[in-house]
Each structure stands twice: as structure tokens, then as C-alpha cells.
């Protein structure tokens, strides 16, 4: 049960990361256009945020790791996704007025809107590895399996968002659904961690 739960959380984290990244282009386009630098800004910020998240998640896993703490990480990520619905418009409008060059405007907007939730989402994988590793000799297999599950989630997040979600739902609805999914995943973490 525990192993399955941790894998589901890693899958969900991967799914949300790529779904968010893909929506990033849509969020920024009304203010910063569809130029290649907009995607450059988004990808840069996601890579930076994930690298910071991996580092933080790894360090956090040193202190009595458990599923409830992972649940709290997921709740934090869900909360930090919400500003995309609530303040994206005024934030981008302000940045647009302050920064003349759309390259730096899109980079700053990506930093403000996507950096916080993505750092937290990046913490999930290393933390999940620590929760499942029992012995040094199996650490590679556990990490490999979790990377597989999480990256598979990312692939489905990309596909689902670009092929279907944008056709069925409005942008804000998708973001709210992602926040809701993170809350549900947190519930799963709490439920699975009850016995710890």
C-alpha cells in the first residue's frame, strides 16, 4: 500500500509539472506573445525550479521523512498553483508596464508565476525515493522506478493537456483542477501515512 501510494504521488507530481509547463505558454501569450523566447523563459524557469526543488527535497528527506510530510509538500504545491488563477492577470499587466523588452518580461512573469509551485513540485521525487529506499543496494532500482513513474506521469500530463484539456476546459479550470488533484494526492499521502 505504501509503495503504491508513493508511486501514485510521484506520478501525480510529474503529471502536474508538465501540465503546468504546457499551460505556461498560454498564460503568457496574451502579454508576451508566442515568440520562441517565451518558451525559452518558461523552460528556463521550470528547469531552475526543478533543480532547486530536487536539492530541497533531498535535504528535507534527511529529517525523519514520512508520508504526512510529503502530503504537506503536495498541499503547499497546490496552494502555490492558485495564484495562476488569482493574480496572473494583474501581475503580468504590471510586469508588461515595467519591462519594455518582452524577453525579460516573459522571464520575470515566469519566475513570479511558475517558480514557487515548481520548486515545491520538484521536491516530491527525491523525497519519494527516500521514503521507499530500505537498503543501499536497492536504492538505484527504487530511484529508477520512481523516475520512470514520475516521467511517465509527465508524458501523460503533456499529452492530456495539449490534446484534450485545452479543448474541453478553460485555462483557469485546468489550473484549478491541477490544484484539486494535488489536494487529492495530499489526502492519499495522509491516508497512507496514518499507520506510520
Amino acid at each position, binding site marked *: 500500500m505504501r509503495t503504491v501510494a508513493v508511486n501514485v504521488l510521484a506520478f501525480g507530481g510529474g503529471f502536474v509539472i508538465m501540465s503546468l509547463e504546457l499551460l505556461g505558454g*498560454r498564460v503568457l*501569450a*496574451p*502579454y*508576451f*506573445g*508566442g*515568440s*520562441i523566447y517565451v518558451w525559452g523563459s518558461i523552460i528556463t524557469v521550470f528547469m531552475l525550479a526543478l533543480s532547486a526543488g530536487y536539492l530541497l527535497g533531498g535535504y528535507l528527506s534527511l529529517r525523519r521523512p514520512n508520508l504526512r510530510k510529503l502530503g504537506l509538500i503536495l498541499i503547499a504545491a497546490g496552494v502555490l498553483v492558485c495564484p495562476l488563477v488569482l493574480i496572473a492577470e494583474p501581475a503580468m499587466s504590471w510586469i*508588461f*508596464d515595467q519591462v519594455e523588452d*518582452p524577453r525579460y518580461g516573459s522571464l520575470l512573469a515566469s519566475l513570479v508565476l511558475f517558480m514557487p509551485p515548481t520548486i515545491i513540485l520538484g521536491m516530491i521525487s527525491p523525497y519519494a525515493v527516500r521514503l521507499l529506499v530500505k537498503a543501499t543496494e536497492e536504492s538505484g532500482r527504487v530511484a529508477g522506478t520512481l523516475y520512470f513513474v514520475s516521467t511517465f506521469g509527465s508524458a501523460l500530463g503533456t499529452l492530456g493537456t495539449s*490534446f484534450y484539456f*485545452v*479543448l474541453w*476546459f*478553460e*485555462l*483557469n479550470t485546468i489550473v484549478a483542477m491541477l490544484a484539486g488533484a494535488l489536494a487529492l494526492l495530499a489526502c492519499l499521502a495522509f491516508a497512507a501515512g496514518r499507520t506510520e
Partner: protein
Amino acid sequence: MKPALALALGLACAFPHAEVIHEEPSLYGKILVTREDGFLCMQFAVRSERRRQSCIDERAPKKMALQYTRMMMASLLLTPEPESVLITGLGGGTLPKALAELLPEARIDVVEIAPAVVSVADRFFDFRAAGNTTVFVRDARVFTRRALRDGKRYELILLDTFDGDYIPEHLMTLEYLRETRRLLTPNGVLAANTFATSRLYDHESETYYRAFGPFLNFTIRESANRIVLASIMPLPDNATLRRAARSWRQRLAPYGVPITSYPRRFDRTQDWNRDRRPLTDQYSPANVLQRMD
């Protein structure tokens, strides 16, 4: 306007036998300059297909070689002597070149996202930003927002922005069209080049309707393109349009624009499914809808 036109468009866009005389790398897909039967064309290479963005007839370079560029000139029937013009999408520069000649007093601003298109237009299509014509290399949406903020206004706006596929999604939304509408002077006119087929046609048309109210749908049987002609003022009646066409006839003749034949092809009926939701910044799966029946 649906599957048959889509097929026609596909055939019209394919130029498999044209000689490629230049390839220009671009941030937004390779640009090809091709020559076939005396026509020099600029195309965007997309997958295995090439799409004509712009062509000139080398034997008669003044003549507008492509149907849709001629059709875009119908906008002059709604605003006979505009003093300020904005064109989004440069291509080979056919439209700005012609308008600069026809309206020597007008300020003409052109927005083009790809620097490579500007250099190819200069090198092969004899387009140079000079005199009253200025080219801005940036995304049209960014330009529009900045222009609004800077208080710029235009009497005529021509939307002709395409990537290799169709109009970029953020340039098809209701918010963008409303921003464009705000960029027009109180007597301003908009002409948009479109060729949506399938389900996108309904969504696209409804979006224009919500932004501008009733508009003229200008199609020609031999062309897959549909030009949307919209105006801030109430649309002129047919008699006024015919009169305007007669007054433009001589001036447009050197460009091969059969302007007097255009007004009777303007359709005022709402020939789309009005239940379709407009495209918005929140909902704009245009490129997915384009492939759906």
C-alpha cells in the same frame, strides 16, 4: 466552405515541383524562396508540405499574384483614404508595398515576428521599409498592447499573421480582437485574412462577431481564403460599396485587383453555427479545432 475547400487549399498550398532558390533559417521554421513558372514565392516549410506566404509574378511584379492579397484590398472600399495603416504579418511585403504606393501620405506600420522574413522580403521581394513605412520585429499581440498603451491608433488594420499551420492561437482570441478594435480610430476598418475550415470556422466567426458585431464575409469561389471585413461604424450598404469600387477601379488596375467584382461577393449572413463558443485567452484550441469536423 468545408471539406472541399480544405482539400482545395491543401492542393493549392503544395508546391512540390517548384525550384528552391534560397533557404533561410528562421526561429519559426525554415523559409524557402521558390521559383516556378515565373512566380517567385516565399514559403514556410512545414513538415513535408510547403505553404505559400507570398508570391510575385516576375514578369509583372506590380500585379498581386495571390488571390488573398487582392481580396485584402477590398478593405479600401470601407475606408477609402486611410491615413494610418497597420499590417500584421509581412510575408514578401506585397500589401505594404502596394498600400504605400496607393496611399503615399499614409503612415504604414508593419509587424513581423521573424527577422528572417524581413531580410528575405528585402533581398528577394524588393520590399524595403522606407518613407512612411516602418517594420516592427515583434509579436503582433505584444505590439498591439504596447501600441494601445502608447496611444497609437489606425484607420485600417490588416490581420495577415500566419505560422506554418494557421493563425497563432493567441492572435485569434476575443481579447486580441477587442484589443485590435480599440486600436482602430472611430471610423476604423479591419480586414482579416482567414482560411478556417471544419469546426474552427464556426468558432472563429463567432469570435469576430462578438468583437465587431456584423461583418462582411468575403469569399471567392476559386479561393480557400475568407476575408473578414469589419468596421467600427455601421457597415456601408451595397450601393455605397459599389460606388467606392468604381472610384478605386483605375488605381487598383495595375495591381490586378478586380475591385468592381468584389462587392457582390460580400456576404452579410451569419453562415456559422452561432452556438459555438468564441475563442478566448482562456479557451483557444484553434489548431486542434482546425482538424475537427
